[in-house]
């Protein structure tokens, strides 16, 4: 789960990382109230989960109440790369002497944690990595050992942060690492991490991605939920407990297993179609799950055909077939359904469906045949 900047800053603050005083605002009046409270000048920042806010006019400096009002009016409702701004973060403006970059993420090839620190912050780190890779000090951290203050001190020196910033930065990095590990982040990034003219180091932005697998030990994450889905189809699928990702095509996809679901998208594409979604119904494909899956896909007006691709392993194909028939009794489906059923109890499953087959309920013997049929029906 990606956090908004304001959520990330609250997460950082909880772990003792210094951020600018500020608050969220959903209306122009709220923005003014926050500005009056924290004191001018303030920065009015669009809260969207996409980069390039500044260039899109989503980050503005305001020196007085009129400017706050003007910027809040302009930014609320602004469309930034398809993300409509519904919320602002208003914070006290900081004077900036230097901009640094700091982040922690998982280093998958090395199976350790990876810290990245640079004295060249404020720009996209990918650009720095491309154009000036020696400006980034990489630190591989053994999860068993963690990050000590001594190591952090060596690291800030290696990254050539300004002398006056080093001790504060080292302490901040240890806290950020704690936030990253204890807070179960996939990514904890500060860009820019700033040094002010009066030699204070603090986080001016926050980019945090949380590992959903750890949500069982983070009840506090509940406050971050609710507005994480921009796509109404994904919201509906989440409510039904389905693993769904909305796409733009016309063939609705239902498959068991993430790999098979991905592969189904690929095959539909190869035979000239486009997938409307990714949907993995997992191992327990009973009637309820199948009905929920068909309902979500049916609610997508772009869908012209539905491809159900099942390879029974632990999932028994006869159970899937029963699920489809049961689902069809409950839900009225607007598009023809093409099924490919293989694996455990496939013969029994196909036999169950046989009496019900018609031009809107079709079986095909292989994945490729089924893909071609579903695409032909959709195009």
């Amino acid at each position, binding site marked *: 789960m990606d956090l908004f900047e304001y959520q990330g800053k609250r997460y950082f603050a909880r772990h003792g990382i210094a951020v600018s005083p500020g608050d969220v605002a959903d209306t122009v009046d709220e923005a003014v109230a926050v500005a009056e409270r924290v004191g001018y000048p303030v920065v009015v920042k669009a809260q969207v989960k996409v980069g390039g806010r500044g260039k899109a006019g989503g980050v503005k400096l305001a020196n007085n109440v009129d400017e706050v009002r003007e910027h809040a009016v302009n930014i609320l409702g602004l469309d930034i790369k398809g993300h409509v701004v519904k919320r602002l973060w208003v914070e006290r403006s900081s004077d900036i002497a230097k901009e640094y970059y700091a982040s922690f993420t998982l280093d998958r090839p090395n199976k350790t944690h990876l810290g990245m620190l640079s004295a060249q912050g404020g720009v996209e780190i990918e650009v720095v990595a491309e154009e000036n890779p020696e400006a980034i000090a990489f630190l591989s951290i053994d999860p068993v050992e963690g990050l000590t203050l001594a190591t952090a001190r060596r690291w800030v020196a290696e990254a050539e942060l300004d002398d006056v910033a080093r001790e504060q930065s080292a302490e901040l990095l240890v806290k950020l690492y704690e936030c990253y590990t204890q807070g179960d982040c996939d990514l904890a990034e500060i860009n820019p991490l700033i040094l002010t003219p009066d030699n204070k180091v603090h986080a001016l932005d926050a980019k945090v991605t949380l590992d959903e697998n750890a949500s069982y030990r983070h009840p506090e994450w509940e406050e971050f939920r609710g507005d994480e889905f921009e796509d109404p189809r994904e919201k509906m699928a989440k409510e039904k407990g389905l693993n769904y990702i909305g796409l733009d095509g016309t063939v609705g996809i239902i498959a068991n297993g*993430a790999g098979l679901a991905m592969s189904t998208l690929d095959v539909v594409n190869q035979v000239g179609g486009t997938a409307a979604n990714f949907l993995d119904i997992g191992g327990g494909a009973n009637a309820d799950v199948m009905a929920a899956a068909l309902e979500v896909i049916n609610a997508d007006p772009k869908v012209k055909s539905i491809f159900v691709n099942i390879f029974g392993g632990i999932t028994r194909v006869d159970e899937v077939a029963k699920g489809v028939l049961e689902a069809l009794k409950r839900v009225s489906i607007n598009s023809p359904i093409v099924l490919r059923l293989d694996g455990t109890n496939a013969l029994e499953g196909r036999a169950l469906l046989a009496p019900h087959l018609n031009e809107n309920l079709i079986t095909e013997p292989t994945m490729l045949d089924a893909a071609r049929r579903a695409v032909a029906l959709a195009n």
Partner: protein
Amino acid sequence: MSIFVDENTKVIVQGLTGSQGRFHGLRNRDYGTKVVGGVTPGKGGSDVDGIPVFNSVKEAVDATGATASFVVVPPKFASDAIIEAAQGGITFIVCITEGIPAHDEALTYNRLVEEFPGVRLLGPNCPGIISPGKCNIGITSGDIALAGGPVGIVSRSGTLTYQALHELSMQGIGQTTCVGIGGDPVPGTNFIDCLAEFEKDPETKAVMMIGEIGGSEEERAAEWIKLNMTKPVVAYVAGVTAPPGRKMGHAGAIISGSKGTAQAKMDALTAAGVYVCQNPTEAGAKMVEIVRAM
């Protein structure tokens, strides 16, 4: 021959008394796997359909001589179960648990490497390992596999592993061992570990590799293949059409920026001399063609 396991491998099931553990543990035994014990703290002395249950891995290993463990416990207990297996003397651990936090996986992996260097972990979040006719640890349905070789399979995806077995078995082509390494960000066993074993195994004549988007394991495997692999490899990589920035089911299946795309992986594998196919059916057909020409 087979890799990692064979007909003599003695297996205990951690979590045998749970519904999943019981279901899969008994299925594995029915397949012919030597399932010699189960472990559930507090339930020692009982049994599951004749399989004795012990309070700890150590007790189970002392009593049965097991060397492999099948971990079927919920995510919050999985890391401790894996470490307990290693401490108890198990050398091959298969963990099918899905949904373990990435930080736990990274910590557990490094603890195993540092404290228990002789221990291999397969998974987590994997279908397990099957050496047809000899040993099946995990959730793969035994009837889609065919004994006798000559193909080794290694796969990052669960259902696509079954698809790969099916494509070959339908054509009468058997498998030596099929290893599901799982789709999580920190797998205990990777492609290269399996490719190296298949390269050494005299009965394995060719290898089928199923990859997916995310990470760089396929690219690393390609490098290794170029330098070390003498046997033909057929590969399929799922997720050509996956959009960047979205997790496609598996925690590990995500394209970050320009990294981890299926195309980059397919290009690397092609450059390493691997037969890269566009879908599982094509990969199966290619492998059948290679084996028949041998």
